[in-house]
């Protein structure tokens, strides 16, 4: 079974961009996109998701539930305490980064503007979390 990756980002273009990157460079993963944290929560609540993902890429600034609220949701008891959550954001605010780690982010990264760097970042992220990292 291919590893499953969930991407939560409110910017449609960014989702398209990531989608392209995944189909072109990392086609071995099964990627699902969610336009907002609320959309993911709703999917979880209705049970339409088959299983917890193997990796979750999360935007920080979103309308509705933002990244930190999503992390609280994901890390709450009975949810997905062990799913690696990588926060991808444009922020350079240290307070935001701290808040992410406090609520249980696995990684907090700045969205690269350079395309090649974006590709290589995603490759190493997937490699690290889906192959090197040992899950509990």
């Amino acid at each position: 079974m291919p590893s499953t990756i969930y991407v939560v980002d409110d910017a449609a273009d960014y989702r398209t961009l990531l989608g392209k990157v995944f189909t072109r460079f990392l086609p071995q993963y099964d990627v699902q996109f969610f336009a907002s944290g609320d959309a993911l929560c709703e999917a979880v609540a209705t049970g339409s998701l088959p299983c917890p993902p193997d990796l979750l890429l999360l935007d920080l600034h979103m309308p509705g539930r933002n990244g930190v609220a999503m992390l609280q949701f994901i890390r709450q008891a009975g949810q997905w305490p062990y799913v690696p959550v990588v926060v991808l954001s444009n922020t350079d605010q240290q307070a935001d980064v701290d808040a992410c780690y406090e609520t249980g982010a696995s990684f907090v990264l700045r969205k690269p503007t350079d395309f090649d760097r974006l590709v290589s970042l995603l490759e190493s992220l997937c490699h690290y979390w889906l192959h090197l990292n040992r899950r509990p």
Partner: protein
Amino acid sequence: MAKTTPIDLPDTTDESAFIPIVAIGASAGGSDAMRDLLASLSPTTGMAFVYVQHADASQPEAITSLLSPYTPMTINEARHAMPIVANQVYVLPTSEELDVRDGVFVRVGHPEQAISDMPIDRFFLSLIDRQKEGAVAVLLSGSTVDGVLGLRAVKAAGGITIVQDDTARYQSMPRSAVLEGVVDKILPPAEIAAELERLSQQMPLFRQTVMREEGDIEPGERSASALSDESEEDMRSILQLLRRAMGVDFSHYKINTIRRRIIRRTLLFKLDSLRDYVSYLRQHPEELVQLYDDLLINVTSFFRDTDTMDYVQKVLLPQVVREKSVDEPIRIWIPACSTGQEAYSLAMLLLEVLGEQEAGRTIQLFATDLSESAVAKARLGSYSRGEVAGVSARRLQRFFTKVDDHYRINKAVRDLCVFAPHNLLKDPPFSRLDLISCRNLLIYLDGTLQRKAIITFHYALNPGGYLLLGKSETVGTSIPLFSQLEKNYKVFARKNDIDSRASFSMAPRSVDNDHVMVRPAQLKRTVMNEHNAERAASGPAGSELDKVVDLLLLNQYVPASVVVNQDLEILQFRGSTGLFLEPSPGKASLNLIKMARPSLVFELRNVVHKAQKTGEAVRKTGLEIKIRNKAHYVAIEAVPLDTSTEERLFLIVFEEVDSPVIPSMKTADARNQRIRELEIELTSLREDMRSIIEEQEASNEELQSANEEIISSNEELQSINEELETSKEEIESTNEELLTINQELQVRNDQLSEAYQFAEDIFGTIREATLILDTDLRVKSANPAFYRLFNLTADTTERRLLYELDNRQWDIPELRAMLMDIVTSDAQFQGFELSYNTAKLGEKRLSLNARRVVRQKDAILLAIEDSTERQRVQQLLAGREAWFRQIADNAPTLIWVTDAEGNYTFLNQVWAQFTGRSLDDVTAAGWDASLYAEDLAAYQTLFHDSVSLRQPFEAEYRLRRHDGEYRWMLEHAQPLVGDDGQFSGYIGSSVDVHLQKEMNQELDRRVQERTTELSALNDNLERVNRHLRQIQAIAQIGTYEFDSLTGEIFPSDEMLAFFGYVHANFQPTVTFLNAITHPDDIEPIQATIRQAMIDGKPFSYVRRITRSDGEMRYLLNRAERLPGTHNRVLASVLDITATKQVEEQLRERTTELTRANELMEMALSTSKAGLGQWDWRTNATVWDERGKQLIGFASDEETANITGWINRIHPDDRALVMKHAQAAMLNSEPFMLEYRVVHDDGNELYLLGTGQMEKDEYGKPLRSFGLVIDISNLKQTEQKLKQTALNLQAVLNSSDMAVAFVKPVRDEAQTIVNFQLATANREFARVVDSSVDTLIGQVVTDLSKALWQDQTMAILQRVMASGKAYQEERLSANKKQWMLITLKRYDDGVVVTGQDVTALKEAEQQQLDLLNQLESSNQNMQVLAQLRQQLRERGELLRSSSHDLRGNFGIIQGAASLLSMANTDEERSQMLSMLQRNMQQATQMLTELLDLARLEAGQEERQITLVDVARLLRELADSVQPMAEEKGLVLHKSGPDRLSVWGDSMKLNRIAQNLLLNAIKYTQRGSVSIAWQLGVDDDQWELVVADTGPGLSVSPSADRGEGIGLTITRQLCQLLDGQLHVDSQPDVGTRFTLTFPTHYAGGALPDS
């Protein structure tokens, strides 16, 4: 030991002296069992019974009395020195410890000594110890573990042990004994008694168990003993059987012990003699095992023999430890260890002695016993409470673990001990031992065996080793081998210089099982070992010669040899193997390799291996062993043995050979020969080695695989175990479920039973006979009603076919068919009528109902209703009805009946005949037609009213007869009401009353005629009367006639008018008259009348009456008795009330005058005024008393002249007074003046004099009346007041405050028209530019110029009316002076104060200035804070917009890169649109940022024009309407149609657009609204944009783009001097309220 002489059967002289003692132990619940036992016990058993009751039970006396009723035997309380007599019962006291010695109770120990808490054990043990005579021990109910040790001892001593079975109330004591295996019989008390009796009958045999003194009797002498040969023979056979079966020869054990135990068994099997037992044994080989175990029973305990143990611990063991170096093992052997207590005791002692040093030491404690069961128990190491009784608490805690009821030896102790079955006398002993403890074994052996044992010990011990024996044991004849170390404790040391001659017979240990028949394949004669010593046992006497010889030969001449199995375990020894073999150190082992001398080991293994391979004998010779520096040469031969068993056995023959001849001549031949030999040997060795190695490798592999198999199977076992665990849990849970289900079922069952019970009860109670039939129509059951009805019983009914019942009365084909129908087609029937006729019951009408009911099987419920009675009643009813009809039809009246609604239901025949109509006719047409038309309405009303009220009624009417004539009928109708109160109709009867009616009418007519005549007469009379009344009325005289006898009065109308009555309500009686008469008048009037009646003279009186209208009238009556009568009076009445009233008024006026006089007098005296009168004509004066006092006249002075008064007046006032007096006189005015009078004593008084002149009708003065009042005090007060006012004025004048008091001036209507100045001070006067004196009395309107001008009055009036103070500060125009003017209401006036507050005012102004400064600096602070906030916001804004730009650029980059890689047009266009979109976003953001920068740099300027913002906003809203619709939002606009203000239309548009677009963008559902309106003040207008979106987030950076838009909006708003207020709630919405000015300074100019 017992001192009794040997007793035996025939020739015993003191047979009677032997009394078997039955010891009975019991504890809780034991006395009941004892009672039962005694009750069943024969009193002549010849035994003595000793009853030991546990200490915690009741006292012996109590027990004695308790038991005595149950047995004829004497029951004694045992006492010291009491001899024991047969057939008596002894109860052992609990207060002291008694033993039995030689048939006498003996006290042991000091009386004060603590009593053992195990009295039963103690007594049993002591009994066996001291008495040693055949004893029987019985243990009854009890809750302790007492008695177990005692029973063991009894059994060991050959006694018989019996315990109570589960009839015991407390089972713990008997049961623990049973568990211990020391019990022979388990019986209820009664059977114990029977068993005892039986034993007593076997007395001769029983007596053989008596232990005889036999210690020194040699086996040979036994023939001399009193035993009969026969008995001896039997004994021997038994021993032989034993030896054959168990491989143990008991013949050299002390024969008496053995015998006793054998006899015990004999007794137990209820056999009469040993011979019987022999034959029993032959038939039941298993009994041999029991016997063997019994024979080996031994008494042992922990730390037995305390003294010795102390010695061992304190001296012996430390010595042993000391003598050994640390690395040498300490080796101890305990032969005959029984159940291990001795071994464990020593182990514990050793551990205690070693203490800390124990760690490094190797300790080997060998404990062996012949009995495997004992060894097994020893290995277990688990002991009961009784068994560990001798262990101190400390040791118990250190070395034992309590498991349930048992104490288990700890591992530390257990690991030191090695337990093994071992025959000391036959098996090879252990060797190199440091200590042997063999206590209480030798006593069971005869001399021969004792010696052998001692020799074995000597052999086994190290030099200097120790031997520990029992108290009564010695080394006996083997003294040279040991020296006694300590006399008291039987400790011996091995003597080293003497060589013991131990020899071991190597009989196989367990021949009984395998019956291995050994057939040596090859047997060589060998030279006997020089150490081959004397044989162990002498042959049994009297055996066949062959056997003896064989044995001799075997022992003497057979070479030393052993039989081994494949594992080289030695099974048998032959000959003396001592030279070649020795027991190995460590665990006792019979492995050949371990036992063989080291130099032999290799070759032994080799030859056996070869023999196994080849199947032939292999021999190896020339092996050298060195023993004590002497070399021996040995040859060994391994011979495979063919046995019937699977296992291969080998006979290993050892042979000592001569030393190989060393070739003396060194010839080449010999050398060559030697070389060849060596080469051959080498070759064979190599071959051997190779094969061995190969085999070893193979076996290694096998081992490996076996190991793996073991591991795997181990794992399998583990998994199986886990599975088992799981299944166990499952089973448990299933069990739980089952329990629950069971419980549920139980509940259901209860419900079911209840329901069934209900059904049964109903079935039993219903009055209808009911039958339950099965499908064969057999009666299943019937209820009591059925039996009652048909007089049947259950026996004759149940299980019978229905139609067989009651002599086939029920055999009714129709019924049967119907019932069968029910069975076949589930039909049912009801109300099947049946006539049932029997001689017994008569005829019965039955109504049958049946239906199918389903119980467990189909059944039919048949209910039989007995309708006989009902039908009878119905018939009766019909009969009665017929009667009634008959009666009704024949009665001479018309009878009718209606139902409840009033419809006729019955008309009798008479009715029909009378009217000629039938019931049907009436029912159809009603009977109205028959009624006379005039009567109809009245009758119908009556009828319907009565029906509705259900009342009886009576009517008369005319009814048409059949011939058409109407006849008068009288009708009575009665409502029909049933027993239950139910109204059911009317029954009526009518009678023809036509004749009576007509006669009545005739009568009436006649009466009428007479009446007319009478009334004409009456009219005449009336007229006469009227005339009379008119006369009376004119005369106002009432007349009446009075009958004094009857009290009747006949008044005229006039009289009644006086009374106020009319005829109608006047009761003409005296009583009534009296009632209205004044009560005071009644009696005199009656007296007058009575008098008049007597003298007949006319009389008169006045009567006061109360008229009907309540007024009282005086009536004057004049009366005279009617001439010629005695009782009638004619009287006239005259109303004299008016006269009376005038009299009354006169009297009242007089009274009033008197009272007025009094009042005047009182007034004068209270006012302290004097009254005087001056007659002008005479000049005379008259003064009353007070007047005199005041004027100064002496009380008695003549005051007749006016001059007296004038003289008294003060000379200064005299002229004035006279002037006033004259003036008053002239003007006829009242005189009033204050004047002073001087009294004679010089006192001066101020008087107020008043006067009034009276004139005659011509105006001439007649006289004056005057009053004088003393007002001296008043005058003084007035003076004082004047002074005070002056003072007050001074105070007021001195104040620098202007003060004035004004009083209101009121007009007639009490409205205030003006105010008058009452008081003012100088300051006030100064203010109003006047002087004080002129001011007072002025009205304020004159001063209003200085006050409030035309407001003055209004202000004052307001203060006056409301009572509220009025204050005003006023600046005087000229003087630059501040005045504070205050108005306050005071009393009935207003106080006006004016104060100079110029200084105060100035200070206030200063303070105000300071405050303003503060305000402005505050504003500066706020501006600063705002600036800071703006800076922060701008930083935030820049950051967030840079994030957004970053995001855009990231996507632009990505899209650009992807564009170059895109494969399809679609993808390319997607990328392009993405690029475009993000570039646009970025551009827009940059534009906005630029805008913002321009705004902030102040480059934007406002272009103020007149704008219709309503139009502007409406158009804007219309333009964004599509966007809102696209998102499904509702856009509200509200505001006035026109709203023209000054403003910058471009910027307003931008602001509004910005807000609206944002609102639409971020609102997902709901509505967006825009509203405009003029503000509260006209110089402002308001713009409101609200949405139902998510609300503004706290951090502006979270929402992209919004931050910058909002910031621009803010800036624009600020530019337009507007104010922006945001009200936002998460998830509710956001509301922007903007306020702009409607005009700007110089707004009209476009470029300002």
